[in-house]
């Protein structure tokens, strides 16, 4: 009884201590969310946020009917799937490499943090220079190795430009996945691996049948975080291509930016923001539905 009473007392104190920060966090999160939701039902110019006309769900309906919106959504999905997919494969491979403790693996692990630590805008500027047709490192390198015979204007084709932006994003973000997976690999008991080895499992079988299932929770975390980030991509596109050529690299956040700040359509921009939130929430739920297994998360 005494223990129970003490626990209740502790719980009360815990709740009381958490309340102020929780209120602040929820307050500052909820206020913009409610404000954005409110604005999304109005036709509101940026210059006169108070002068909006209530139009109900028209902003949402107009967006959903707009072919530019759907083209942008598919472009964003392509960016997300390709970049996160490659980052995941690369991240797992590099994590496995570090986990096998090759020579200088500690140095490798430290180096891995560098791309991730570079601010995205700096990363974008760096890759813009690398891709420059006339003074970029990519052309110089390919020319030196005889892969191309003249400089190529990489950012003038919408499809090439999109894939090169993805490449820049992969370079920046795959270390994040690698570090999460590497930490998870380190927590897997080695005796499982050794037992399988004794039973005659080869390296590939041990990886796919033992380690990979145990990495499910870590992969889930990395996937949810990176998918949400990739779906909302903005800064790297802004710096490398500004959405060009011919809107070929405009992702959904960039479209929202155009609507809100360049065109000044705050209502439509707010509705777009809400739709982005719904899409990302949907994706996170799909991941959790298929990947989350509570019993494994306790490992």
């Amino acid at each position, binding site marked *: 009884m005494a223990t129970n009473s003490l626990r209740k007392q502790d719980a009360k104190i815990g709740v009381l201590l958490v309340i102020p920060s929780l209120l602040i966090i929820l307050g500052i999160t909820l206020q913009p969310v409610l404000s954005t939701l409110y604005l999304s039902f109005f036709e509101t110019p940026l210059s006169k946020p108070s002068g909006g006309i209530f139009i109900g769900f028209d902003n949402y309906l107009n967006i959903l009917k707009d072919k530019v919106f759907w083209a942008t959504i598919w472009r964003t999905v392509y960016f997300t799937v390709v970049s996160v997919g490659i980052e995941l494969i690369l991240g797992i491979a590099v994590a496995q490499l570090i986990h096998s403790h090759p020579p200088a693996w500690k140095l490798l692990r430290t180096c891995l943090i560098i791309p991730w630590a570079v601010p995205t805008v700096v990363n974008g500027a760096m890759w813009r220079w690398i891709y420059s047709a006339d003074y970029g490192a990519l052309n110089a390198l390919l020319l030196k190795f005889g892969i191309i015979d003249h400089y190529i204007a990489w950012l*003038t084709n919408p499809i090439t430009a999109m894939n090169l932006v993805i490449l820049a994003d992969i370079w920046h973000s795959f270390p994040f996945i690698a570090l999460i997976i590497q930490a998870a690999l380190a927590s897997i008991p080695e005796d499982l691996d050794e037992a399988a080895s004794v039973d005659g499992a080869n390296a590939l079988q041990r990886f796919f049948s033992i380690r990979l299932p145990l990495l499910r929770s870590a992969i889930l975390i990395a996937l949810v975080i990176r998918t949400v980030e990739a779906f909302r991509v903005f800064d790297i596109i802004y710096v490398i291509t500004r959405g060009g050529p011919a809107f070929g690299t405009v992702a959904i956040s960039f479209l929202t930016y155009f609507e809100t700040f360049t065109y000044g359509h705050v209502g439509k921009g707010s509705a777009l923001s809400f739709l982005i939130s719904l899409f990302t929430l949907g994706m996170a739920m799909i991941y959790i539905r298929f990947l989350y297994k509570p019993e494994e998360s306790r490992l």
Partner: protein
Amino acid sequence: MKIWSKFIVCFLVIAILAGMVGCSPKTSEPAAPAETTEQPAGAEPEQVTIRVLTMQQAGYPVEVVNEIAERFMADNPNVKVETEFVAYEALHDKITTAMATTPPAYDVVLVDDIWYAEFSNAGYLYDVSDKITDEMKQGIFPSGWEITTVDSKVYGLPWGIDGMYFFYNEKILKEAGFDNPPKTWEELEEMSQVIKDKGLVEYPMVWSWAQAEASICTLVALLFGNGGTFVDEAGNPAFNNTEGVEVVQWMVDSIDKGYTNPASISYLEEDVRNVFSQGKAVFAVNWGYMYQMANFEPEESIINGQVNMALMPVFKKGLEKGIETATINGSMGWSVANASPNKEIGWEFIKFMTSKPIQDEYSKYSTPAWQTSYEGENLEKLISYSEANKVLIPNYVKQIPFAHVRPKVPYYSEASLALQLALQQALTKQKTPQEALDEAAAKFTELQEKYQ
């Protein structure tokens, strides 16, 4: 349970209050202005900080703007000027975002001519009509006042009456066997072919045709040089007529023929300057600032002493119509935020920044908006300010009368983006020039109707 009930109630109250604050109408109407108050005799003047938003691109370099700000602060010890620089492409959106709050994040902003209608319509800018002196009225070019005036109200002081100019590398052109620059774009193509045949450069011409306003500027220069126009007399889009389509087709062809650097589709003005300054192009179209940097600054260019300027060529069709040259008017103005609590100090700052002595002194970076700077002895004095001015100023005097403005409408930014997209779709061959320009014209008309 009790503690949780209290928690939920507390949270809901705070959330609702926060929501109400967030949803309550914000206003861009100016707050009660905290004008500079008269100080009692002997009292120390109050220290005031003004924040200035400008661009780091064409025009005055960062260090020049900061130097002018230092000079203003030396004259006004109670004022601190904080400058912030962004790329031109970010300037419009930065201003609109900053103006959404009261007081705004900036007291003084640099405004492009195409934004004055939008910003004045939105109530962002301080009406300075009654502050304009006779000396200003008569001294500054009428075309400068056209930039900062909307519906007979003046919203800023003209600065840097500028246009796009035609630059060429005299040394390479002579090596190709030509003593004079081209007068028509067709002549430029012939010269380009010779330059290519002789292996002097791979792509003789470089442009700023990226998905940005710079592409519209070059389009306007080409369009008027072909006898075309942006909008007709009634204000309806005319860029998709025969002359416009011919121009865009010429742009596409010039890439296909290898006369224009294909990377131009992704280049802005600074890329043009860098490529040209590396001697990788013989011809370039850019703002006046490029001349000083490409021809006189060894750390910026490897072709110092090889650069010259000429009147912007036109198409043969334009020449037959009597058009000698055509360019874009890319002037800007300095304005004070209407909701700024420091409007009067902001006004003093823009007055200083755009004053004749300052604009004359730094004329090698941006040509002055004062017509009196180009008259009689003043012209000689202006030319003497720098080596660059010996070429830049005479070209300015000849070129600017042929500078054409873009439509001054509040929806310009949106209409321009539609035209930028059309250009990019044509240049990347996703659409024919006619299809792309027709779509942009339809968007322009849609916006026109919406705003009417």
